[in-house]
């Protein structure tokens, strides 16, 4: 019973400000955050500063960088820089919205499986196995193809195939936390399951959830890029993957039209990964090396 008393002190969230300080000291993570903010800024303010329609033919087809278009023009004469600016907003929007779906589905299933165990847990395990044999990217391709490509179907298909990772982490956190003293204390005081799940355990699981969600944004952006590379995207919305996919037959003539959008994807995902790693080290001190 002694642990019930001390348990209270280890309540969640107390290490949060401390974690933020640790994050601020992590140079790689900070660099990632700055780059990501710049990309977001680029996506929202860029089109105002550089008001060129990414679909308009504004230059000579296959014009190299500098010649009428700062980063060159593609095989049709469309401005690559305009496409990159337009793609930033879409990429971030799809990445974050899809991850929002994975976080919701993953948290609900993971917490039910972890908290109630038993049958619920078994079902989650079976679903996990099921998703392990289905290549997630292929499944999301099938979904988008069948339900016709649009921003919404892309977001939902990515959300639907990627939530297992989140669910497993949330489940593990629930399993770990539900045995802790302060949870037992709440239960001893007669708290209802709903309160324990949402008010007691979930806040403690938040650090891990934040980390995995951040990393999922990177995965979602890569998925969206792959889908649009294959043409599985709304043809009226310019994305980085679409730019690469459409210019692929012309890589020998217009290397810039495939290289720059790729760098944009890479930088975005890299900055998200750096932030995720930084958050992991900052918020999960028990995982950090001494």
């Amino acid at each position, binding site marked *: 019973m002694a642990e019930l008393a001390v348990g209270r002190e280890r309540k969640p969230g107390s290490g949060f400000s401390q974690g933020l300080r640790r994050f601020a000291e992590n140079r790689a993570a900070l660099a990632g955050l700055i780059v990501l903010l710049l990309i977001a800024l680029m996506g929202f303010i860029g089109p105002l500063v550089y008001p060129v329609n990414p679909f308009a033919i504004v230059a000579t087809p296959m014009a190299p960088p500098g010649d009428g278009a700062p980063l060159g023009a593609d095989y049709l004469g469309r401005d690559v820089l305009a496409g990159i600016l337009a793609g930033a907003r879409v990429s971030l929007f799809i990445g974050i919205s899809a991850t929002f779906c994975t976080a919701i589905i993953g948290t609900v299933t993971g917490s039910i499986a972890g908290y109630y165990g038993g049958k619920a847990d078994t079902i989650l395990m079976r679903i996990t196995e099921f998703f*392990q044999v289905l*290549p997630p*990217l*292929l499944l999301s391709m099938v979904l988008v193809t069948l*339900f*016709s490509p649009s921003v919404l179907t892309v977001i939902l298909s990515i959300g639907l195939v990627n939530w297992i990772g989140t669910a497993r982490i949330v489940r593990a956190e629930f399993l770990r936390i539900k045995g802790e003293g302060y949870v037992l204390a709440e239960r001893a005081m007669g708290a209802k399951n709903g309160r324990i799940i949402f008010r007691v355990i979930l806040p403690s699981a938040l650090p891990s959830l934040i980390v995995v969600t951040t990393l999922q944004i990177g995965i979602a952006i890569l998925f969206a890029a792959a889908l649009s590379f294959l*043409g599985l995207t709304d043809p009226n919305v310019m994305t980085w993957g679409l730019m*690469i996919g459409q210019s692929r037959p012309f890589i020998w003539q217009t290397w810039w039209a*495939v290289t720059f959008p790729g760098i944009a994807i*890479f930088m975005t995902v890299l900055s998200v990964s750096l932030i995720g790693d930084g958050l992991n080290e900052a918020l999960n001190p028990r995982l950090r090396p001494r």
Partner: protein
Amino acid sequence: MAVVKLVLARLAQGVLLVFAVVVLNFLLIHLAPGDPAQVLAGEFGGTTPQILAQIRATYGLNHPLWVQLLTYIGHVARGNLGQSFYFNQPVLSLILQRLPATLLLVITAQVSAILAGTMLGVIAARRPHGWLSQGITVTALIGYSTPVFWLGIMLLIAFAYLWPIFPIGSMETIGFEGGIFHEALNILHHLVLPAFTLAFVYLAQYSRLSQANMLETLGSDYIRMARAKGLPEWLILYKHALRNALIPVVTIAGLQFSQVLAGAILVETVFDWPGMGQLTYESILRRDYPLLLGILLISAVVVVVVNILTDLSYRLIDPRIGAGSVTGVGYGT
């Protein structure tokens, strides 16, 4: 025999999973917007009213849903995955024609990623803060953040155009004639870039993993014991430590196989590699739904088979699991 029992159990589990994929396919056909018969016919390709009527008859689309499900399962069980009207061929035979090329690519990529990755990890473990170790960490991060199709295009530009030491794509030089050996060499030459592209992400990841395991293993008591026995460092490293460090890598590689297969779709598209991935791209382009769903199903089958093989190889490396205890004499406490 415990091994046989184990394989049978895993097979049964695999059959169940594949069955679940079949049901998923059926659901998708019916959930997709539009007439299921139209879905089963695919969008492009001459779908005449006669063909649609024929499909309705074959799949019993006028019957209640559960009869339709049973009919569908019956067809799949007999190996009928439908007809690709675009290619004018049965889906199964189309996929089976393309499967070997994909397996060659995927297995080459995975095996080289595991071997090279573990080697690098082992070397890096000797200096946990050395340049190689840091290089691996950075490469892993880069590999993780790079879209695989873009990496493939960049490699093509670099090594097939600017410095043309590799062919620009496809699996064989068109019209290439020669002995078996030369032909194999020709394929190998075409294989290098796509396999490297597909292996790149995992290579760094496996090095990191094996390095971490190696560091843990090298600190273990049995390595100290091996040193106390007077064994030379290379024997300790490559006999005693490597095998222990390999176990987690094989486990992860097995779990990730479905991801690798998905990556192959993109890599094959970039390199015109005539495998299942390229077929996927074509089926997406043509909205050839039966073909696309067939590929989904066969991919699941491939992953199940590979998982069983991984499981078995895992048991070869680690005697503590399953089969090992069968030969035991029962030395309890």
